[in-house]
């Protein structure tokens, strides 16, 4: 069966358009993935910065320079050595 010239032309045009669409779709998907990756990287960087900041704040709040004056303000004090007894905990017997 002989395929007419116009059919060939339309066929090639459709093929070319399909290839073009495929390339553009892949390109768009690539950009979308890159955007997502970029967003995630930024988010990770933000979270790391926030984590560092929070750890810093926790450490600062838990430091002796902050805690001791507050504890003393509440009437608490550091235990002296005679009030510290270190116990040797014996191993529990095993059957």
């Amino acid at each position, binding site marked *: 069966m002989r395929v007419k010239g116009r059919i060939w032309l339309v066929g090639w045009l459709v093929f070319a358009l399909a290839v073009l669409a495929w390339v553009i779709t892949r390109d768009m998907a690539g950009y979308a993935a890159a*955007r997502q990756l970029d967003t995630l990287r*930024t988010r990770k960087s*933000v979270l790391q*910065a926030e984590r560092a900041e929070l750890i810093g704040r926790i*450490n*600062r709040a838990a430091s002796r320079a902050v805690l001791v004056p507050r504890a003393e303000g509440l009437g608490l004090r*550091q235990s002296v050595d005679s*009030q*510290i007894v270190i116990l040797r905990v*014996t191993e529990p017997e095993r059957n």
Partner: protein
Amino acid sequence: MAKPVVRLGAVQLAFAIGAAIILVRAAQVQLISGARYATDAESERTEHRTQEARRGFIYDRNGEILVESVDHYHVAVTASVIPDSMRGEAVQLLIEDLGLSRTQVNRQLRRTNGYFRGPFTSAQVQRLRSIPGIRPRAGEQGRFHPNGRLAEAILGRTAADGVKADGLELVFDTVLTGVPGSKVLRKDPSGRTYESPARFGPHATPGHDLYLTLDVALQEIVEYALDDALQRFDAERGDVVVLDPQSGEILALASRTIDGDVTAKAVTDPFEPGSTAKVFTAAALLTGGQAGWSDSVWAEMGEWKTEHRTIKDEEPHGYLTLAQVIEQSSNIGIVKFARRLESRQQYLMLRDFGLGARTGIEYPSESDGVLNRPHKWSGISGESMAMGYELSVTPLQLAQAYAAIANDGLMMRPTLIRSIVSAEGEILYRHRPEPVRRVVSAELARELRQALRGVVYGGGTGEKAALEGYEVAGKTGTAKRAGGGGYVEGAFIASFTSLFPADDPQIVTVVKLDNPKAAHFRFGSTTAAPVTKAVLERLLAAETGALDRAPLARPVASELGSNGQSRTIPATSVIVAWPDRDSDGPAGDSCSVPDVRGLSLRAAARQLHELGLRMQLTGWGIVRTTDPLAGTVVPQGATVRVGADDSGTRR
């Protein structure tokens, strides 16, 4: 009008010519100018940049982060692009999130292209990203200290903006610095850039991580105690060194001035130690057989005029044995004993204790101290040195010398570095205790410790350092302060060097206070000794592995269990069971690191957690390495660094 056949022929010819033109042009573009067009197109859509390598982290001995790397940003502003409706919000965010003043913000917004140098963190610039015309730009990595200024001088800083690098950041710069890689950025049609997975160069290799010997909890105790002491005794500056005598590991090191300068003078600035040096003379006498502990001299009731000068004691004494000379810190007594020594003999003993030589610590600008050779000595140099003058030491050198006494006469090299670990978790260096030399015999070291115990508990000068439940050995020192070509009238350097516990010391502490001016608080016995006591008390109460509490523990629990009778504990007592664990928890104070190599991360985590260990992960996949190594005995609650990769699964 032409015939249809002619028209069709014309159209076909036109198509053919058109196709030929396209073919020729395509051939020209592809074959002749193809490379140029490809390059142009690539540069339109992509950009090559250097990928900065993450600088290594610095941890304490328990895996607590001391320094980490964070991304830093600058902020560029094009005021004309900011929509009017968002201008107010933009100004508010710039002020609130970047911590800028309104004046600073307005000044930059008046310019065509404004710029805020920062540096700002990623979190600070996050909300600004949504505002057109404000563009956060990634700058160089910055260093973040989660513990604020803790151990600031030791850690040091990197070189930036003309500031010179110092501290461990300087010494280990090549270790911490990674190898930069390259990355490709793709631009979308609107000009925004994204990092492409395509890569034409190597990935950046992160720098190695440093694990220090410092213990964060102890370092904080020491710094707090030192700050408190400077205020309480009105001292100009102070230094504290805490050393593990058996390994040479420095557990804490702090230097402070009343003005807040924290430069590590404990390593770089020598001082005349005064009476803390008397024990070295005693060691020389006993080693050479020129004196025994029970030999005595007449201490002239507190004042002795020699051929050259008048030597005084703080308290008048009659006859004193060598042990009592150390206990009472008698200048007259030690000088009379020192006259039995030859110069060379005295010099060699001082040199063996490390005086006049750098310890070799990994810190820049360490001082040698001063110890002149005997041929440079004057007629009274030996006597002066016996009292701790005409020689100078850094607090670290003094700690090292006393650590030799604590360690049965064997001197160890001090270190700040416990291990160096690559980003993949491979241990590149692990500190092994490094003996320097045997200074005195083990027997003599025990005798010296006994004498130093007498300083604290035998009615000696160090009684303000005495703990009730645990024994401390130590020696006070009060030296006139040098300055202006002589000694400054009324100015002293007070110090106290301690060994704790006295019989089998685990830590050596040097506390030095420079020119305490508070009334009645100018001597080592009244200033540095109580500071030492405060540090030890807080150390005992703190939850830190810097101290092995097992030898200090009392077997109360077993007594309770054996006779079934309860033991009355004073109502004021605070019972600290160490380590703190549930009665049905794993047995023992410590445990061995299990061999989890080859296991999945989940299985490894389960094993480690069942033993009460913490896990710190590097990489992903199958476990390849652990730090500490499998079989190493560690206290419960310790952090095990696990390195994993998925290379095995790929294979």
